[in-house]
Protein backbone atom coordinates (compact mmCIF):
# COMPACT_ATOMS: atom_id res chain seq x y z
CA UNK A 1 0.00 0.00 0.00
CA UNK A 2 1.01 3.58 -0.65
CA UNK A 3 2.82 5.76 1.85
CA UNK A 4 0.66 7.60 4.41
CA UNK A 5 1.33 11.20 5.42
CA UNK A 6 -0.31 13.33 8.11
CA UNK A 7 -0.23 17.10 7.79
CA UNK A 8 0.36 18.60 11.23
CA UNK A 9 -1.33 21.87 12.18
CA UNK A 10 0.50 23.68 14.98
CA UNK A 11 0.59 26.99 16.79
CA UNK A 12 3.09 28.55 19.17
CA UNK A 13 5.30 25.48 18.98
CA UNK A 14 2.54 23.07 19.99
CA UNK A 15 0.94 20.50 17.68
CA UNK A 16 -2.85 20.63 17.37
CA UNK A 17 -4.95 17.81 18.88
CA UNK A 18 -5.54 16.65 15.31
CA UNK A 19 -1.94 15.36 15.15
CA UNK A 20 -2.84 12.40 17.39
CA UNK A 21 -6.21 11.91 15.70
CA UNK A 22 -4.67 11.69 12.23
CA UNK A 23 -2.30 9.01 13.52
CA UNK A 24 -5.31 7.04 14.79
CA UNK A 25 -6.99 7.42 11.38
CA UNK A 26 -3.81 6.26 9.64
CA UNK A 27 -3.73 3.13 11.81
CA UNK A 28 -7.31 2.39 10.84
CA UNK A 29 -6.38 2.91 7.18
CA UNK A 30 -3.55 0.40 7.39
CA UNK A 31 -2.14 -0.77 10.73
CA UNK A 32 0.91 -2.23 9.00
CA UNK A 33 1.92 0.99 7.27
CA UNK A 34 3.87 3.61 9.17
CA UNK A 35 2.66 7.18 8.94
CA UNK A 36 4.94 10.14 8.28
CA UNK A 37 4.15 13.54 9.80
CA UNK A 38 4.71 16.60 7.61
CA UNK A 39 5.26 19.88 9.41
CA UNK A 40 5.72 23.25 7.72
CA UNK A 41 6.78 26.52 9.32
CA UNK A 42 9.94 28.21 10.41
CA UNK A 43 12.02 29.01 13.46
CA UNK A 44 12.14 27.50 16.93
CA UNK A 45 8.39 26.84 17.03
CA UNK A 46 8.72 24.44 14.11
CA UNK A 47 11.62 22.65 15.79
CA UNK A 48 9.67 22.25 19.04
CA UNK A 49 6.70 20.74 17.16
CA UNK A 50 8.91 18.32 15.23
CA UNK A 51 10.62 17.27 18.44
CA UNK A 52 7.31 16.69 20.25
CA UNK A 53 6.04 14.49 17.39
CA UNK A 54 9.00 12.12 17.76
CA UNK A 55 7.17 10.42 20.64
CA UNK A 56 4.31 9.26 18.42
CA UNK A 57 5.34 9.45 14.75
CA UNK A 58 8.13 7.17 13.44
CA UNK A 59 9.13 9.76 10.86
CA UNK A 60 8.70 13.52 10.65
CA UNK A 61 9.32 15.56 7.51
CA UNK A 62 10.27 19.11 8.40
CA UNK A 63 9.82 21.91 5.85
CA UNK A 64 11.30 25.20 7.05
CA UNK A 65 10.75 28.35 4.97
CA UNK A 66 10.23 31.85 6.26
CA UNK A 67 6.97 32.54 4.35
CA UNK A 68 5.49 29.39 5.93
CA UNK A 69 5.58 31.03 9.36
CA UNK A 70 2.07 32.43 8.90
CA UNK A 71 -1.00 30.33 8.04
CA UNK A 72 -1.47 30.42 4.26
CA UNK A 73 -2.76 27.24 2.64
CA UNK A 74 -1.67 28.46 -0.81
CA UNK A 75 1.98 28.24 0.20
CA UNK A 76 1.64 25.05 2.22
CA UNK A 77 -0.11 23.32 -0.69
CA UNK A 78 2.76 24.05 -3.06
CA UNK A 79 5.32 22.86 -0.49
CA UNK A 80 3.43 19.57 0.00
CA UNK A 81 3.06 18.98 -3.74
CA UNK A 82 6.83 19.44 -4.10
CA UNK A 83 7.72 16.76 -1.52
CA UNK A 84 4.91 14.17 -1.46
CA UNK A 85 5.49 11.17 -3.76
CA UNK A 86 2.90 10.23 -6.37
CA UNK A 87 0.16 7.88 -5.21
CA UNK A 88 0.48 8.72 -1.50
CA UNK A 89 -2.37 8.94 1.01
CA UNK A 90 -2.42 12.31 2.74
CA UNK A 91 -4.41 12.99 5.92
CA UNK A 92 -5.30 16.49 7.14
CA UNK A 93 -7.82 17.80 9.67
CA UNK A 94 -11.17 19.01 8.27
CA UNK A 95 -10.63 22.32 10.05
CA UNK A 96 -10.68 25.90 8.76
CA UNK A 97 -7.13 25.40 7.54
CA UNK A 98 -7.69 21.90 6.14
CA UNK A 99 -10.74 23.07 4.19
CA UNK A 100 -8.55 25.78 2.65
CA UNK A 101 -5.71 23.40 1.84
CA UNK A 102 -7.03 20.04 0.75
CA UNK A 103 -9.39 20.33 -2.26
CA UNK A 104 -6.66 22.02 -4.31
CA UNK A 105 -4.02 19.69 -2.90
CA UNK A 106 -5.95 16.67 -4.20
CA UNK A 107 -6.16 18.26 -7.66
CA UNK A 108 -2.45 19.09 -7.73
CA UNK A 109 -1.52 15.54 -6.60
CA UNK A 110 -4.04 14.09 -9.09
CA UNK A 111 -5.47 12.24 -6.12
CA UNK A 112 -9.01 11.47 -4.93
CA UNK A 113 -10.44 13.71 -2.21
CA UNK A 114 -12.74 12.70 0.63
CA UNK A 115 -13.64 15.59 2.94
CA UNK A 116 -14.90 15.42 6.53
CA UNK A 117 -14.28 11.70 7.06
CA UNK A 118 -15.87 10.46 10.32
CA UNK A 119 -14.85 6.81 10.05
CA UNK A 120 -12.81 4.43 7.92
CA UNK A 121 -14.31 0.99 7.34
CA UNK A 122 -11.43 -0.60 5.53
CA UNK A 123 -9.10 -0.28 2.63
CA UNK A 124 -7.42 -2.65 0.26
CA UNK A 125 -4.79 -1.66 -2.25
CA UNK A 126 -7.08 0.18 -4.62
CA UNK A 127 -10.21 1.11 -2.74
CA UNK A 128 -11.14 2.76 0.50
CA UNK A 129 -14.54 2.75 2.20
CA UNK A 130 -15.03 5.88 4.26
CA UNK A 131 -18.00 7.17 6.26
CA UNK A 132 -19.21 10.75 5.92
CA UNK A 133 -22.31 12.64 6.99
CA UNK A 134 -24.64 14.81 4.94
CA UNK A 135 -27.49 17.24 5.61
CA UNK A 136 -26.03 18.57 8.84
CA UNK A 137 -25.45 15.09 10.27
CA UNK A 138 -29.01 13.86 9.69
CA UNK A 139 -27.83 10.99 7.48
CA UNK A 140 -24.60 9.03 7.11
CA UNK A 141 -23.17 7.82 3.83
CA UNK A 142 -20.58 5.24 2.78
CA UNK A 143 -18.17 6.68 0.23
CA UNK A 144 -15.99 4.47 -1.95
CA UNK A 145 -12.78 6.11 -2.99
CA UNK A 146 -10.34 5.06 -5.72
CA UNK A 147 -6.83 4.97 -4.24
CA UNK A 148 -5.01 4.08 -7.44
CA UNK A 149 -3.58 7.60 -7.86
CA UNK A 150 -3.48 8.42 -4.16
CA UNK A 151 -5.96 10.25 -1.98
CA UNK A 152 -6.29 13.24 0.30
CA UNK A 153 -8.55 12.54 3.28
CA UNK A 154 -9.74 15.37 5.51
CA UNK A 155 -10.50 13.89 8.92
CA UNK A 156 -13.26 15.39 11.10
CA UNK A 157 -11.76 16.80 14.32
CA UNK A 158 -12.74 14.63 17.29
CA UNK A 159 -13.98 11.69 15.19
CA UNK A 160 -10.96 9.43 15.74
CA UNK A 161 -9.87 8.72 19.28
CA UNK A 162 -6.09 8.96 19.67
CA UNK A 163 -4.72 5.47 20.21
CA UNK A 164 -2.09 4.52 22.74
CA UNK A 165 1.02 3.77 20.75
CA UNK A 166 4.41 2.53 21.84
CA UNK A 167 7.31 4.95 21.86
CA UNK A 168 8.02 5.81 18.25
CA UNK A 169 11.42 7.49 18.69
CA UNK A 170 10.79 9.18 15.37
CA UNK A 171 13.42 10.57 13.05
CA UNK A 172 13.17 14.15 11.81
CA UNK A 173 14.13 14.53 8.14
CA UNK A 174 14.59 18.00 6.71
CA UNK A 175 12.88 18.28 3.32
CA UNK A 176 13.17 22.06 2.93
CA UNK A 177 15.61 21.80 0.02
CA UNK A 178 13.07 19.86 -2.09
CA UNK A 179 10.59 22.73 -1.98
CA UNK A 180 10.72 25.10 -4.96
CA UNK A 181 9.38 28.62 -5.37
CA UNK A 182 6.29 29.35 -3.30
CA UNK A 183 3.38 31.23 -4.92
CA UNK A 184 2.63 34.85 -3.96
CA UNK A 185 -0.93 35.32 -5.27
CA UNK A 186 -2.34 35.41 -1.75
CA UNK A 187 -0.55 37.15 1.08
CA UNK A 188 -1.17 36.84 4.82
CA UNK A 189 -1.67 40.20 6.52
CA UNK A 190 -2.79 39.60 10.11
CA UNK A 191 -4.98 37.58 12.45
CA UNK A 192 -7.73 39.38 14.35
CA UNK A 193 -8.88 37.71 17.56
CA UNK A 194 -12.54 37.15 18.42
CA UNK A 195 -14.32 40.03 20.09
CA UNK A 196 -15.77 39.63 23.55
CA UNK A 197 -19.26 41.12 23.63
CA UNK A 198 -21.41 42.48 26.46
CA UNK A 199 -21.66 38.96 27.93
CA UNK A 200 -18.70 36.57 28.05
CA UNK A 201 -20.42 33.25 27.33
CA UNK A 202 -17.18 31.35 27.93
CA UNK A 203 -17.48 32.14 31.65
CA UNK A 204 -21.21 31.46 32.13
CA UNK A 205 -22.19 28.35 34.16
CA UNK A 206 -25.63 28.02 32.56
CA UNK A 207 -26.43 28.74 28.91
CA UNK A 208 -29.77 28.89 27.12
CA UNK A 209 -28.64 28.47 23.53
CA UNK A 210 -30.83 29.08 20.49
CA UNK A 211 -30.55 27.87 16.91
CA UNK A 212 -32.35 28.21 13.61
CA UNK A 213 -35.45 26.68 15.21
CA UNK A 214 -36.14 29.97 17.00
CA UNK A 215 -37.63 30.98 13.65
CA UNK A 216 -37.38 34.76 13.78
CA UNK A 217 -35.64 37.51 15.70
CA UNK A 218 -38.77 38.47 17.63
CA UNK A 219 -38.91 35.00 19.18
CA UNK A 220 -35.56 35.51 20.90
CA UNK A 221 -37.49 37.15 23.75
CA UNK A 222 -38.72 33.67 24.73
CA UNK A 223 -35.15 32.46 25.27
CA UNK A 224 -34.06 35.69 26.92
CA UNK A 225 -36.94 35.47 29.36
CA UNK A 226 -36.13 31.87 30.28
CA UNK A 227 -32.45 32.76 30.68
CA UNK A 228 -33.37 35.61 32.99
CA UNK A 229 -35.57 33.33 35.08
CA UNK A 230 -32.79 30.73 35.33
CA UNK A 231 -30.04 33.27 35.95
CA UNK A 232 -28.43 32.08 32.73
CA UNK A 233 -27.00 33.77 29.63
CA UNK A 234 -28.20 33.42 26.03
CA UNK A 235 -25.86 31.92 23.46
CA UNK A 236 -26.58 30.61 19.97
CA UNK A 237 -25.52 28.53 16.97
CA UNK A 238 -24.25 29.86 13.66
CA UNK A 239 -27.53 30.48 11.74
CA UNK A 240 -28.67 32.96 14.40
CA UNK A 241 -25.47 35.00 13.91
CA UNK A 242 -25.66 34.68 10.11
CA UNK A 243 -29.16 36.20 10.28
CA UNK A 244 -27.75 39.04 12.47
CA UNK A 245 -30.23 38.24 15.26
CA UNK A 246 -27.44 37.96 17.86
CA UNK A 247 -23.87 39.21 17.94
CA UNK A 248 -21.00 36.94 16.88
CA UNK A 249 -19.72 37.07 20.47
CA UNK A 250 -22.69 34.86 21.47
CA UNK A 251 -21.86 32.07 18.99
CA UNK A 252 -20.90 28.62 20.31
CA UNK A 253 -18.97 26.36 17.94
CA UNK A 254 -15.73 25.77 16.09
CA UNK A 255 -15.98 29.17 14.40
CA UNK A 256 -17.31 30.85 17.54
CA UNK A 257 -16.51 30.38 21.21
CA UNK A 258 -15.77 27.21 23.15
CA UNK A 259 -17.88 27.18 26.30
CA UNK A 260 -17.67 25.10 29.51
CA UNK A 261 -21.00 25.52 31.29
CA UNK A 262 -22.51 23.21 33.94
CA UNK A 263 -25.80 23.11 32.07
CA UNK A 264 -26.43 23.74 28.35
CA UNK A 265 -29.98 24.05 27.10
CA UNK A 266 -29.96 23.68 23.28
CA UNK A 267 -33.20 25.12 21.89
CA UNK A 268 -33.97 24.62 18.21
CA UNK A 269 -30.35 23.62 17.55
CA UNK A 270 -29.95 20.66 15.19
CA UNK A 271 -26.49 19.79 16.50
CA UNK A 272 -23.96 20.08 13.70
CA UNK A 273 -20.49 18.85 14.60
CA UNK A 274 -19.17 22.40 14.27
CA UNK A 275 -21.59 23.50 16.99
CA UNK A 276 -20.94 20.51 19.26
CA UNK A 277 -17.20 21.14 18.99
CA UNK A 278 -17.74 24.35 20.96
CA UNK A 279 -19.46 22.63 23.92
CA UNK A 280 -16.62 21.57 26.19
CA UNK A 281 -16.37 20.02 29.65
CA UNK A 282 -19.26 17.56 29.30
CA UNK A 283 -22.11 19.73 30.65
CA UNK A 284 -25.61 18.46 31.43
CA UNK A 285 -26.97 18.87 27.91
CA UNK A 286 -30.70 19.35 27.33
CA UNK A 287 -32.11 19.51 23.80
CA UNK A 288 -35.48 21.01 22.90
CA UNK A 289 -36.37 20.42 19.27
CA UNK A 290 -39.50 19.55 17.36
CA UNK A 291 -37.56 17.34 14.91
CA UNK A 292 -37.10 13.93 16.62
CA UNK A 293 -34.39 13.11 14.04
CA UNK A 294 -32.25 16.12 14.96
CA UNK A 295 -28.65 14.95 15.55
CA UNK A 296 -28.56 16.87 18.85
CA UNK A 297 -30.67 14.07 20.41
CA UNK A 298 -27.81 11.63 19.78
CA UNK A 299 -25.51 13.53 22.10
CA UNK A 300 -27.85 15.23 24.59
CA UNK A 301 -28.45 13.84 28.10
CA UNK A 302 -32.12 14.75 28.03
CA UNK A 303 -34.38 15.48 25.08
CA UNK A 304 -37.71 17.26 24.79
CA UNK A 305 -39.54 16.87 21.50
CA UNK A 306 -41.75 19.93 21.45
CA UNK A 307 -42.26 23.37 19.97
CA UNK A 308 -39.78 25.55 21.81
CA UNK A 309 -42.02 28.61 21.48
CA UNK A 310 -44.62 26.81 23.60
CA UNK A 311 -42.30 24.87 25.88
CA UNK A 312 -39.81 27.56 26.93
CA UNK A 313 -42.39 30.07 28.27
CA UNK A 314 -44.04 27.37 30.39
CA UNK A 315 -40.65 26.33 31.71
CA UNK A 316 -39.81 29.96 32.49
CA UNK A 317 -43.04 30.34 34.47
CA UNK A 318 -42.35 27.26 36.55
CA UNK A 319 -38.75 28.28 37.15
CA UNK A 320 -39.97 31.65 38.45
CA UNK A 321 -42.48 30.00 40.79
CA UNK A 322 -39.78 27.68 42.04
CA UNK A 323 -37.19 30.38 42.67
CA UNK A 324 -39.80 32.82 44.02
CA UNK A 325 -38.46 35.45 41.70
CA UNK A 326 -40.76 38.31 40.75
CA UNK A 327 -41.87 38.84 37.17
CA UNK A 328 -39.90 39.58 34.11
CA UNK A 329 -37.35 42.35 34.36
CA UNK A 330 -37.86 42.86 38.12
CA UNK A 331 -35.62 40.17 39.48
CA UNK A 332 -33.32 41.58 42.18
Amino acid at each position, binding site marked *: MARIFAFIVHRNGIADDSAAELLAAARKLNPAQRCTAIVTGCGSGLDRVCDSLRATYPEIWRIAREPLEHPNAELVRKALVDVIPEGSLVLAPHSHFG*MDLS*PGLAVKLNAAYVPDVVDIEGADGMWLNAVRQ*EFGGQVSVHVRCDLSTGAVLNIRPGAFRPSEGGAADGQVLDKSAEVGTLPDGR*RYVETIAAEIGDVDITKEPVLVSVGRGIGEQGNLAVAEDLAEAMGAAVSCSRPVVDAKWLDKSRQVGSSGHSVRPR*VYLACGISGSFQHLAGIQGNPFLVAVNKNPKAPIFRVADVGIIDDLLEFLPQLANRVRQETCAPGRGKRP
Partner: protein
Amino acid sequence: MPDTSENEIQVSPDGTDIERDDLVYSVNEPDNYAVEEALQIVSRTGGEVTVATVGGEDDEEVLRREMAMGASRAVLITDPAFCGSDGRGIAAILKAFVATGRYDLILTGVQADDGCAQVGGMLAAMLDYPFASLVTSVEVLEGRKLKIAREIEGGGKEINTIDLPCVLSIQTGINEPRYVGMRGIRQAASVPIPRADASTLAVDVSLAGKAAAKTRRLDYFVPPAGKGAEILEGNREEKVEKLLDLLKAKGGLN
Protein backbone atom coordinates in the same frame (compact mmCIF):
# COMPACT_ATOMS: atom_id res chain seq x y z
CA MET B 1 -31.10 21.09 -3.14
CA PRO B 2 -33.28 20.01 -0.24
CA ASP B 3 -33.60 22.74 2.38
CA THR B 4 -32.25 21.11 5.58
CA SER B 5 -34.03 23.56 7.85
CA GLU B 6 -37.39 22.72 6.31
CA ASN B 7 -37.02 18.96 5.98
CA GLU B 8 -36.58 15.87 8.03
CA ILE B 9 -34.09 13.94 5.92
CA GLN B 10 -34.87 10.20 5.81
CA VAL B 11 -32.89 7.38 4.28
CA SER B 12 -34.85 5.48 1.60
CA PRO B 13 -35.69 1.85 2.45
CA ASP B 14 -32.99 0.39 0.18
CA GLY B 15 -30.35 2.91 1.32
CA THR B 16 -29.47 4.06 -2.21
CA ASP B 17 -30.67 7.62 -1.61
CA ILE B 18 -32.59 9.84 0.75
CA GLU B 19 -36.37 10.14 0.41
CA ARG B 20 -36.72 12.97 -2.09
CA ASP B 21 -40.51 13.09 -2.47
CA ASP B 22 -42.14 15.98 -0.64
CA LEU B 23 -38.85 17.72 0.12
CA VAL B 24 -38.77 21.51 0.09
CA TYR B 25 -36.06 22.53 -2.38
CA SER B 26 -34.29 25.86 -2.43
CA VAL B 27 -31.02 27.44 -3.46
CA ASN B 28 -28.04 26.24 -1.42
CA GLU B 29 -27.83 28.80 1.39
CA PRO B 30 -24.10 29.63 1.10
CA ASP B 31 -24.57 30.14 -2.68
CA ASN B 32 -27.23 32.73 -1.91
CA TYR B 33 -24.68 34.70 0.15
CA ALA B 34 -22.14 34.34 -2.69
CA VAL B 35 -24.57 35.80 -5.24
CA GLU B 36 -25.42 38.68 -2.90
CA GLU B 37 -21.72 39.39 -2.35
CA ALA B 38 -21.10 39.43 -6.11
CA LEU B 39 -23.98 41.88 -6.60
CA GLN B 40 -22.69 44.16 -3.83
CA ILE B 41 -19.16 44.14 -5.29
CA VAL B 42 -20.32 45.16 -8.79
CA SER B 43 -22.57 47.85 -7.32
CA ARG B 44 -19.40 49.43 -5.85
CA THR B 45 -16.96 48.79 -8.69
CA GLY B 46 -19.02 48.27 -11.83
CA GLY B 47 -19.09 45.12 -13.92
CA GLU B 48 -21.69 42.43 -14.11
CA VAL B 49 -22.57 39.16 -12.42
CA THR B 50 -23.03 35.88 -14.26
CA VAL B 51 -24.56 32.95 -12.38
CA ALA B 52 -24.00 29.37 -13.49
CA THR B 53 -24.87 25.96 -12.13
CA VAL B 54 -24.19 22.39 -13.19
CA GLY B 55 -27.43 20.48 -13.01
CA GLY B 56 -30.65 19.47 -14.65
CA GLU B 57 -33.72 21.23 -16.04
CA ASP B 58 -35.19 21.72 -12.55
CA ASP B 59 -32.26 23.92 -11.62
CA GLU B 60 -33.41 26.59 -14.07
CA GLU B 61 -35.69 27.90 -11.29
CA VAL B 62 -32.70 28.47 -9.04
CA LEU B 63 -30.99 30.50 -11.77
CA ARG B 64 -34.16 32.55 -12.32
CA ARG B 65 -34.18 33.38 -8.64
CA GLU B 66 -30.60 34.68 -8.91
CA MET B 67 -31.61 36.71 -11.97
CA ALA B 68 -34.42 38.19 -9.89
CA MET B 69 -31.81 39.16 -7.28
CA GLY B 70 -29.97 41.14 -9.95
CA ALA B 71 -27.60 38.87 -11.85
CA SER B 72 -27.07 40.01 -15.45
CA ARG B 73 -26.77 36.61 -17.02
CA ALA B 74 -27.43 32.98 -16.13
CA VAL B 75 -26.20 29.78 -17.74
CA LEU B 76 -27.49 26.27 -17.05
CA ILE B 77 -24.65 23.81 -17.62
CA THR B 78 -26.30 20.50 -18.33
CA ASP B 79 -25.40 17.33 -20.17
CA PRO B 80 -26.24 13.65 -19.58
CA ALA B 81 -22.49 13.00 -19.72
CA PHE B 82 -22.08 15.03 -16.50
CA CYS B 83 -24.27 12.70 -14.43
CA GLY B 84 -22.45 10.97 -11.60
CA SER B 85 -19.64 13.55 -11.50
CA ASP B 86 -17.85 13.87 -8.17
CA GLY B 87 -16.67 17.24 -6.86
CA ARG B 88 -13.63 17.11 -9.05
CA GLY B 89 -15.78 16.41 -12.12
CA ILE B 90 -17.96 19.44 -11.30
CA ALA B 91 -14.82 21.56 -10.92
CA ALA B 92 -13.54 20.34 -14.31
CA ILE B 93 -16.86 21.30 -15.94
CA LEU B 94 -16.78 24.74 -14.31
CA LYS B 95 -13.19 25.22 -15.43
CA ALA B 96 -14.34 24.76 -19.02
CA PHE B 97 -17.15 27.24 -18.41
CA VAL B 98 -14.78 29.86 -16.92
CA ALA B 99 -12.63 29.57 -20.05
CA THR B 100 -15.57 30.76 -22.21
CA GLY B 101 -15.60 34.23 -20.58
CA ARG B 102 -13.28 36.74 -19.00
CA TYR B 103 -14.10 36.60 -15.31
CA ASP B 104 -12.16 38.64 -12.74
CA LEU B 105 -13.61 36.96 -9.70
CA ILE B 106 -15.27 33.58 -9.17
CA LEU B 107 -17.35 33.08 -6.05
CA THR B 108 -18.78 29.80 -4.75
CA GLY B 109 -20.76 29.06 -1.62
CA VAL B 110 -18.58 27.52 1.06
CA GLN B 111 -20.31 24.17 0.81
CA ALA B 112 -23.45 22.30 -0.19
CA ASP B 113 -25.60 20.17 2.11
CA ASP B 114 -23.19 17.28 1.57
CA GLY B 115 -20.67 19.29 3.62
CA CYS B 116 -17.86 18.61 1.15
CA ALA B 117 -16.69 22.24 0.67
CA GLN B 118 -14.54 21.14 -2.25
CA VAL B 119 -15.53 22.58 -5.65
CA GLY B 120 -14.14 26.12 -5.19
CA GLY B 121 -10.71 24.96 -4.08
CA MET B 122 -10.53 22.35 -6.83
CA LEU B 123 -11.60 24.84 -9.49
CA ALA B 124 -8.92 27.32 -8.36
CA ALA B 125 -6.25 24.61 -8.50
CA MET B 126 -7.33 23.58 -12.01
CA LEU B 127 -7.26 27.22 -13.18
CA ASP B 128 -4.02 27.97 -11.29
CA TYR B 129 -5.82 30.92 -9.67
CA PRO B 130 -5.24 31.93 -6.05
CA PHE B 131 -7.93 30.64 -3.68
CA ALA B 132 -9.30 31.45 -0.24
CA SER B 133 -12.07 29.60 1.59
CA LEU B 134 -14.55 30.62 4.31
CA VAL B 135 -14.43 34.26 3.25
CA THR B 136 -16.37 36.66 5.50
CA SER B 137 -15.55 40.02 3.89
CA VAL B 138 -14.31 41.30 0.53
CA GLU B 139 -12.85 44.75 -0.15
CA VAL B 140 -11.68 45.73 -3.64
CA LEU B 141 -8.23 47.38 -3.64
CA GLU B 142 -6.35 49.25 -6.35
CA GLY B 143 -4.21 47.25 -8.78
CA ARG B 144 -6.46 44.21 -9.30
CA LYS B 145 -6.27 43.03 -5.72
CA LEU B 146 -8.75 42.22 -2.96
CA LYS B 147 -8.46 42.44 0.79
CA ILE B 148 -10.37 39.55 2.31
CA ALA B 149 -11.15 38.14 5.75
CA ARG B 150 -11.29 34.38 6.34
CA GLU B 151 -13.12 32.78 9.21
CA ILE B 152 -10.86 30.79 11.55
CA GLU B 153 -11.32 28.69 14.70
CA GLY B 154 -12.49 30.45 17.84
CA GLY B 155 -14.40 33.31 16.21
CA GLY B 156 -11.38 35.23 14.96
CA LYS B 157 -10.45 36.09 11.41
CA GLU B 158 -7.44 36.08 9.16
CA ILE B 159 -6.82 39.01 6.82
CA ASN B 160 -5.21 38.34 3.42
CA THR B 161 -4.70 40.20 0.19
CA ILE B 162 -5.26 38.19 -2.98
CA ASP B 163 -4.66 38.90 -6.67
CA LEU B 164 -7.37 38.82 -9.33
CA PRO B 165 -8.43 36.68 -11.02
CA CYS B 166 -9.08 34.40 -8.05
CA VAL B 167 -11.63 32.00 -6.58
CA LEU B 168 -13.24 32.65 -3.19
CA SER B 169 -15.59 30.37 -1.28
CA ILE B 170 -18.07 32.54 0.59
CA GLN B 171 -19.14 31.77 4.16
CA THR B 172 -22.71 32.33 5.34
CA GLY B 173 -23.31 35.55 7.27
CA ILE B 174 -20.98 37.66 5.09
CA ASN B 175 -23.94 39.91 4.11
CA GLU B 176 -27.71 40.05 4.27
CA PRO B 177 -29.03 38.48 1.05
CA ARG B 178 -31.73 40.64 -0.47
CA TYR B 179 -35.33 39.57 -0.39
CA VAL B 180 -36.68 38.45 -3.73
CA GLY B 181 -40.32 39.42 -4.09
CA MET B 182 -42.99 37.89 -6.30
CA ARG B 183 -42.64 40.82 -8.72
CA GLY B 184 -38.96 40.06 -9.30
CA ILE B 185 -39.66 36.36 -9.73
CA ARG B 186 -42.38 37.15 -12.29
CA GLN B 187 -40.07 39.46 -14.24
CA ALA B 188 -37.38 36.78 -14.40
CA ALA B 189 -39.87 34.07 -15.30
CA SER B 190 -39.84 34.85 -19.02
CA VAL B 191 -36.09 35.48 -19.43
CA PRO B 192 -34.54 32.75 -21.57
CA ILE B 193 -31.83 30.81 -19.72
CA PRO B 194 -29.14 29.64 -22.18
CA ARG B 195 -27.85 26.09 -21.92
CA ALA B 196 -24.25 24.95 -22.19
CA ASP B 197 -23.26 21.32 -22.65
CA ALA B 198 -20.10 19.25 -22.93
CA SER B 199 -19.51 20.14 -26.57
CA THR B 200 -20.25 23.90 -26.37
CA LEU B 201 -17.87 24.14 -23.40
CA ALA B 202 -15.33 21.70 -24.86
CA VAL B 203 -15.29 19.80 -21.56
CA ASP B 204 -12.77 16.99 -21.39
CA VAL B 205 -15.30 14.22 -20.71
CA SER B 206 -12.56 11.96 -19.41
CA LEU B 207 -12.53 14.27 -16.36
CA ALA B 208 -16.29 14.46 -15.69
CA GLY B 209 -19.19 12.07 -15.27
CA LYS B 210 -19.54 8.76 -13.49
CA ALA B 211 -16.64 6.95 -15.13
CA ALA B 212 -14.16 9.69 -14.17
CA ALA B 213 -15.33 9.94 -10.55
CA LYS B 214 -12.69 8.91 -8.03
CA THR B 215 -15.28 8.91 -5.27
CA ARG B 216 -18.88 7.74 -5.19
CA ARG B 217 -21.58 7.20 -2.62
CA LEU B 218 -22.34 3.54 -1.95
CA ASP B 219 -25.33 3.92 0.34
CA TYR B 220 -27.00 6.13 2.90
CA PHE B 221 -27.73 4.94 6.41
CA VAL B 222 -29.06 6.23 9.71
CA PRO B 223 -26.17 7.38 11.90
CA PRO B 224 -25.51 5.35 15.07
CA ALA B 225 -27.46 6.71 18.03
CA GLY B 226 -24.45 7.29 20.28
CA LYS B 227 -25.40 7.35 23.94
CA GLY B 228 -28.74 8.88 22.95
CA ALA B 229 -30.78 11.34 24.98
CA GLU B 230 -33.36 10.26 27.55
CA ILE B 231 -36.48 11.61 25.88
CA LEU B 232 -38.88 13.07 28.46
CA GLU B 233 -42.37 11.66 28.00
CA GLY B 234 -45.79 12.94 28.95
CA ASN B 235 -47.76 16.06 28.22
CA ARG B 236 -46.11 19.48 28.19
CA GLU B 237 -46.81 20.16 31.87
CA GLU B 238 -45.29 16.83 32.87
CA LYS B 239 -42.22 17.42 30.73
CA VAL B 240 -41.76 20.87 32.27
CA GLU B 241 -41.92 19.38 35.79
CA LYS B 242 -39.45 16.62 34.95
CA LEU B 243 -37.02 19.05 33.38
CA LEU B 244 -37.37 21.49 36.27
CA ASP B 245 -36.35 18.75 38.73
CA LEU B 246 -33.39 17.80 36.56
CA LEU B 247 -32.25 21.41 36.20
CA LYS B 248 -32.42 21.87 39.97
CA ALA B 249 -30.39 18.71 40.52
CA LYS B 250 -27.76 19.64 37.94
CA GLY B 251 -27.24 23.22 39.06
CA GLY B 252 -29.15 24.76 36.19
CA LEU B 253 -30.97 27.35 38.29
CA ASN B 254 -28.75 30.15 39.49
